[in-house]
Structure formats: structure tokens, C-alpha cells
């Protein structure tokens, strides 16, 4: 009895030591990641909420002013314009990026298509480029005098368009740029989803006399719903935060005549150009709330539509 205990004791001690060393390792490993994430994301989030109720220029301490920033915000016609532009831009980007992405995903998954890999490689290429470079390339494609697009239109006898210099066409031009840049990402997501569909479904449908269209509507589309939901959410979140292209092309003005002013450009301009950091924080909180609502709506739609299917 005694011998058994004494034999057990050191083992238990060793086990405890082992656990302690594991614990120490775990905390050490997490120390820096948690410190960095807390300092540069969690703490700032709380501070952003606080700053949004203050007047703050980064030189003197913030002074509390209640809801003033938010009230001023919704009274500013340029903010309303930015809100509208961002909404139009986001809706257009989501529709185009998801539908074109899905269409191209269908195209590059046809088994008989030759050069699939090459097509996929090229479609994804714009995704890896910097948005600044893409914006510069397209600013020149859209150039009224020497731009590629007007040259191409000239071939078809269409008169030169002002594009980025016109307040009615500039936002459309920015939409085209982001479709060119980001659609390749959705192509990759859809390609993988379509390739993973079990071939038996199509074989069974073929026995029942299905064709390409019925296959697409009744098999492919319902089965890749999760991918459609995913690309819709990522495209929406991404385009809601549009900044680089507009900033580079309009030099931060959101022009001409605020027609390309997005929420993030508006935020940047007020915070970092005009040093109104409290006001900028209020914009960021409004954007945050809209993003949360958007995501929740999309998840709800996704949930209910998948629930109906199964």
C-alpha cells in the first residue's frame, strides 16, 4: 500500500509539472497576439465609440459633445450623397460580381473546355494587383482623349465619352473598375463549388431527360447556394468599404461634384485632412452599424432559403 502510493506520487508530480509547462507555453504563445489585437483592434473599437461623441483633433484631449456629430452628419448633404453613392455602388458591384463570377465559374468548369487552367489564371490576375495600380490603369483606359475605351467606341462610331470627368458617368466607371478587379475572386469560389458537386446528380437527371438549362436551374443553382451567399456577403462588405480607387482617381475629392464620394473617402477626408477625428469616428460607427445590419439580413435570407430546401 505504502509502496504503491510512493510510486504514484512522483508520477503525479511529474504530470502536474508537465501541465504547468504546457500552460506556461500556451500563455507565452498567446501573449503577443492578444496584446497586439487588444491594442490595435479591441481598444480602438471602444475608443471609436467614445470619440464619436466628442470633438477631437488629436492635439488637445477630446471634449464630450453628445450626439452633435451624428446630428451634423445626417444634416450634411455630402454625407447623404456619400451614403447614396456607396449604396448604389455596393448593389451594382454585388449583382455584377456575383452573377458574372457565377457565369464564368460555369464556363470554366465545362469538362470539354480547352485551356481551362489558362482562363482561370487570367481571370484571377486582377485580384492580385494593387488597387492603386488598377485605378491608375483604368483612369487611363477611361481617359477621354487617349483612353482605350473611347478608342474602342470610336471603332463602332460612338462619340467619345467623358467618363471619369462627368458626374453622371464617374460612378459607373468606378463600378466597372471594381468588377474588373474583384470578379476573379468569385470565379474561384464558384469554380470550386461547382467542381465539388456530385456527378451522380447530373447522371440521374440525364436519365430523366434533363438538358443544360434544367441542370443549371434545378441542380447546380440550389446546391451552390452557400457559395452565392458567401460571395454576396464578401462582395457587399468589400464594396461598402470602397476607398483606394476613388481616392487615387479623384485625389481624395470624390469628384466630379461628389458623384463618386463614398463613405470611407468622406470619413478619411474629414478625419485626416480636416482633423475632425470625432466627426470621422461618428462616420465609422454609422458604417459599422450598417455593415452589421447588412450581414445579419444576408445571413437571415441565406438561412431561410436553405431551410426551405431541406
Amino acid at each position, binding site marked *: 500500500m505504502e509502496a504503491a502510493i510512493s510510486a504514484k506520487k512522483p508520477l503525479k508530480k511529474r504530470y502536474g509539472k508537465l501541465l504547468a509547462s504546457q500552460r506556461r507555453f500556451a500563455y507565452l504563445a498567446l501573449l503577443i497576439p492578444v496584446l497586439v489585437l487588444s491594442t490595435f483592434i479591441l481598444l480602438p473599437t471602444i475608443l471609436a465609440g467614445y470619440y464619436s461623441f466628442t470633438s477631437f483633433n488629436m492635439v488637445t484631449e477630446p471634449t464630450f459633445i453628445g450626439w452633435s456629430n451624428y446630428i451634423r452628419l445626417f444634416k450634411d448633404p455630402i454625407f447623404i450623397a456619400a451614403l447614396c453613392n456607396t449604396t448604389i455602388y455596393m448593389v451594382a458591384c454585388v449583382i455584377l460580381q456575383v452573377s458574372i463570377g457565377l457565369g464564368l465559374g460555369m464556363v470554366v468548369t465545362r469538362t470539354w473546355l480547352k485551356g481551362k487552367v489558362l482562363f482561370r489564371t487570367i481571370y*484571377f490576375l486582377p485580384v492580385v494587383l494593387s488597387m492603386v495600380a488598377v485605378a*491608375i490603369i483604368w483612369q487611363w483606359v477611361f481617359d477621354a482623349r487617349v483612353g482605350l475605351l473611347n478608342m474602342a467606341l470610336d471603332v463602332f462610331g460612338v462619340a467619345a465619352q467623358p467618363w471619369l470627368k462627368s458626374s453622371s458617368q464617374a460612378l459607373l466607371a468606378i463600378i466597372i473598375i471594381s468588377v474588373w478587379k474583384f470578379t476573379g475572386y468569385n470565379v474561384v*469560389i464558384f469554380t470550386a463549388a461547382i467542381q465539388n458537386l456530385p456527378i451522380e446528380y447530373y447522371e440521374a437527371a440525364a436519365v430523366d431527360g434533363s438538358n443544360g438549362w434544367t441542370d443549371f436551374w434545378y441542380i447546380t443553382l440550389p446546391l451552390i447556394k452557400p457559395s452565392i451567399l458567401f460571395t454576396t456577403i464578401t462582395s457587399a462588405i468589400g464594396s461598402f468599404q470602397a*476607398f483606394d480607387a476613388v481616392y487615387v482617381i479623384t485625389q481624395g475629392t470624390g469628384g466630379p461634384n461628389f458623384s463618386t464620394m463614398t463613405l470611407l473617402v468622406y470619413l478619411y477626408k474629414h478625419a485626416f485632412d480636416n482633423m475632425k477625428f470625432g466627426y470621422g469616428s461618428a462616420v465609422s460607427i454609422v458604417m459599422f452599424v450598417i455593415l452589421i445590419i447588412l450581414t445579419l439580413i444576408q445571413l437571415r435570407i441565406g438561412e431561410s432559403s436553405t431551410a426551405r430546401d431541406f
Partner: protein
Amino acid sequence: MKTLTISRKQYASSNVLNRISSFLVRMLVYAIAISVTISVIIPLLWVVFTAFKSLPETYVWPPTILPEQWRVDNIALLFERVPQFGRFFINSVLVSVPLVLLNLFFCSLAGYVFAKFDFPAKNLLFILVLATIMIPFQVTMIPAYRILSTLGWNNTYMGLIIPGMVGAFGIFLMRQFMTSIPTELIEAARIDGASEFRIYWQIIIPSTTPAFAALAIFTFLESWNSFLWPLIVIDTPEMRTLPLGLALLNTQFIAQWPLIMIATLLTSLPVIIIYIIFQRQFIHGILLSGIKQ
């Protein structure tokens, strides 16, 4: 018997129709695939051609497609007109490379601990990390900039590197991979007396190389192309990274297309080369990022 022959006839005619329609569909699919390819490639080729034209040649009508003469010395001209361009490039490398290495190290370490360890407050810490993934950048940027200024890191490499040295997405990606490593393997190494760090270094890292490759590529792309954060942190010309430098160039040399295009080309070339070499890992990484949702 009669019905059978009719149905055979019908079958034959529908077969011909099917063939014609499937031929048309194939033509249509090829037409789409090729025209999209052209619309992606043409602007990029045009950049390359224009980069090596003379300035007057970019304004002639009708336009030339290939340069009349390939002016390779346009590259030298860029460095002459914008002497800091080389510095922009070095800055981008000096920021991107440490960011990749730090992310690989800290994300994998944290991912490993979350996947394979049990310790008090694990769930709390995990929720903390989880929360950061949902907070958009524009919410944190103003206060983060203030914290950075307090630390005296604005306009420094530290300011560009430290806030991005670890990310929730990387931690999740790594955790996902580490979960599938058999725990017995780790236990066995412990019994053999290996230290915890040695187990991580010599067993865990080698068995999760695909995750490392994916995260490395992601982090590199993100940091090489990053624009908004450097725009906030950096305010002297010599500390600019390539995207900032390019944006500056674009405002300084309006309509000097060869100069702007050569700079665009030099900025984009590293990512294009890396993309072409590591295509498979890129696609893999994109798909992994989809899994996290």
C-alpha cells in the same frame, strides 16, 4: 411496334437538334471565355506597350499598338525623374517581408495553442480573437492612429508592421489545420522529453506547410498592396511604400503616360511573378478563406 418506331425517329431528330444546340452552346461558351480573357489582358498589355513608348507617341491618332521603338531607357528616366522610386520599392520589401514572417510565426503559434492546449481562460481569449475579425478597419483606424502616435510610431516601419503582425484570420486558418494533427504525436514527443517549443518547431510546423504557404501569400499580397493604413501612418516622401509612391506619382506627372505606366508595371511585376509561380497555393488560400465563413 408503331410507337416504338416513332419514338426512334423522334429520338434521332432530337439527337440532331441536341447536337446542333450543344454545338451552339459550346461556341457561346468559348466566345464568353475568350472575350473575358481579352478584356482582362488588353489593358495590361497596353500598360506594357505604353511604358516603352515616347511621350508624343502616346498622343498620336490613330494610336500605335506596339511602340515604334522600345524605349527601355524609360526605366532609367523614371528613376531620374523620381529618384525615390527605388526607396519606395525597398520600403515595400522592408514592410512586407517582416509582416509575412511575423504573421507566420505568431498566427501559427496561437493557432496551435488554441487547437491543442487546455488552459484556464482559453475560451475567453478565443472569443477575444474571434471578436476582432468582425470589426471593420475603418472603425479602428482613427484610435489606432492615435495609439500609434502616442507610442511615437507614426512615420516609421514599426507603425506599418506592428499593428498588422498578427491577425485573427491567420490564427483561425492555422487552428483549422493544427486540429487535424494527431494529439498522440504531440504526447509521444512530450514523453520523449521534447520541450513544448521544440514540438511546435520540429513537429507542428513541418506538418502544416500548406497552411503556411497560403498564409504567407495572403499576407504578402495584403501588405504589398496595402494603401489606406500607410496613407495614414506615413507623411514623408522617403517613407512611402510603392502604392503610396505610385499614387503620388500619378498626381505629380499628370498625363505623362509612359512614366506612370512604367511605375505601375514595376509595382505590379513582383505580385504577378509570385502569382504565376505560386498559382496553386493562391487558389488554395482563397478557398481556405472561404471555409472560415
